């Protein structure tokens, strides 16, 4: 566990010392301020509008950040050659992958927490209220979403360069989030073979839409009951673990030869 945390810490330090995180955050903050100050159809004072826009931007930011950080970890180590001194230490491939995953997830989760707090502050400044328990639930499930996406990014990056892994992770996570919930509707009108194929896809891909509590938060619904919340959290952990295990299987026998890099 110690090695895993040392590797994760290196990811955190690297991300904090890179400028792209700050550029992305500043861009997001500027966009957020512009959107909440707009008065479209007289809805400026509507707190739910602010929440919806703010949460959408927080999700987009987290999605870009977690993909960007996770997919570059392993290819960057290999390309630069830093993988050699690192793997020459008593570090297993499983520890390397887990450390990178915790590192990428930690960066995304911490940044998202800041954005949730910022959003709560803006909402409070507009005279609105946020259900704290629901906000915590929304953030925790959002963290599960990022855990799955980070694990997916790492899995693809074990055998692809960072650009290819980012593209594939982006497409697959977007499809899992936005298109997968519509699959049963599509399957209803399809032939039996197509229906089987569609339902296979439906059950095989991770259901990222389960982690999305934005509507609940935007419209001030009650906090989610504990049981489904825990079940969805457990589902997120299970899917992340499965993706990391696949990543480890793809990476554990990967050969590193300086002459071939």
């Amino acid at each position, binding site marked *: 566990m110690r*090695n895993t945390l040392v590797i994760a810490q290196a990811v955190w330090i690297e991300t904090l010392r890179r400028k792209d995180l700050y550029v992305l955050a500043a861009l997001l903050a500027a966009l957020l301020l512009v959107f909440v100050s707009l008065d479209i159809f007289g809805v400026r004072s509507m707190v739910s509008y602010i929440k919806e826009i703010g949460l959408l931007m927080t999700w987009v930011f987290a999605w870009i950040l977690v993909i960007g950080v996770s997919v570059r970890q392993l290819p960057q180590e290999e390309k630069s050659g830093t993988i050699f*001194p690192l793997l*020459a230490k008593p570090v297993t491939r499983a520890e390397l992958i887990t450390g990178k995953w915790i590192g990428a997830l930690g960066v995304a989760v911490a940044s998202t927490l800041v954005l949730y707090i910022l959003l709560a502050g803006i909402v409070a400044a507009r005279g609105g209220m946020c259900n704290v328990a629901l906000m915590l639930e929304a953030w925790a499930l959002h963290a599960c979403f990022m855990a799955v996406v980070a694990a997916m990014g790492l899995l693809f990056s074990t055998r692809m360069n960072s650009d290819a892994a980012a593209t594939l992770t982006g497409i697959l996570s977007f499809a899992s989030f936005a298109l997968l919930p519509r699959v049963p509707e599509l399957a209803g009108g399809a032939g039996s073979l197509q229906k089987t194929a569609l339902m296979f896809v439906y059950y095989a891909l991770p259901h990222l839409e389960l982690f999305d509590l934005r509507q609940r938060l935007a419209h001030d619904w009650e906090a989610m009951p504990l049981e489904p919340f825990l079940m969805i959290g457990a589902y997120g952990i299970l899917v992340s673990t499965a993706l990391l295990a696949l990543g480890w299987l793809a990476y554990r026998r990967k*050969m590193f030869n300086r002459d071939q890099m």
Partner: protein
Amino acid sequence: MLSAIEIRGLKVEFRAGRKVVPALRGLDLKVAEGEVFGFIGPNGAGKTTTMHVLLGFIEAASGSAEVFGEDVRRSIARRRIGYMPENPQMYRFLTGRELLAMAGRLFGLGGSALAAKVESLVNMVGIEAAADRRIEGYSRGMMQRIALAQALVNDPDLVILDEPTGGFDPIGRIEIRRIIAGLRAAGKTVFFSSHELSEVEKVCDRVGIIARGILVASGCISQLAAPGETLEQYFVRVLA
């Protein structure tokens, strides 16, 4: 005497598309504990590949490799190894001191023992003035120094150095020789590759010459070379 390194019938193959390229063709090699062993050969002979097998970066197609009796495929085998790669690249976003502390923590060091170790290594490789600067601003020679320091952070019993003098100026080379002599005096095993045969001649107890993936000669330089013959002359004669 126990073997620090024992390699038997090691075969390694790389795939280039559909073509299989043999890199090691049944290498046998023994390095005794406490000796300084120079591993030399022409480019593409298999020196770095052998080191990479010892460090678990590459799996052999057949044969076996052990370090202090441990199979190199197990991560525990690397507990007693320090490694400095050829043209080393370190985390550029860390300072020299942070890098050494990170390397130490990966070996289970911590607290005041780690701080003292980092300080002694910084002094040993002569980067006191740059230790708190980010590595991205280091020159090639300084990168070599920090790479050497991180290889010694665990006080390793076996030090594997791949072309250690490559980026050094003449003063730096003398310092490397001094460090290797210090490691020998401390009873450590040093396994290093180099194209600088005069350096090898100066510091090694024994040498092994590898060509086309097999060991073609191994032993003390005085026993291998004819009287009055330098290692370079012997090397050229053997490979011819």
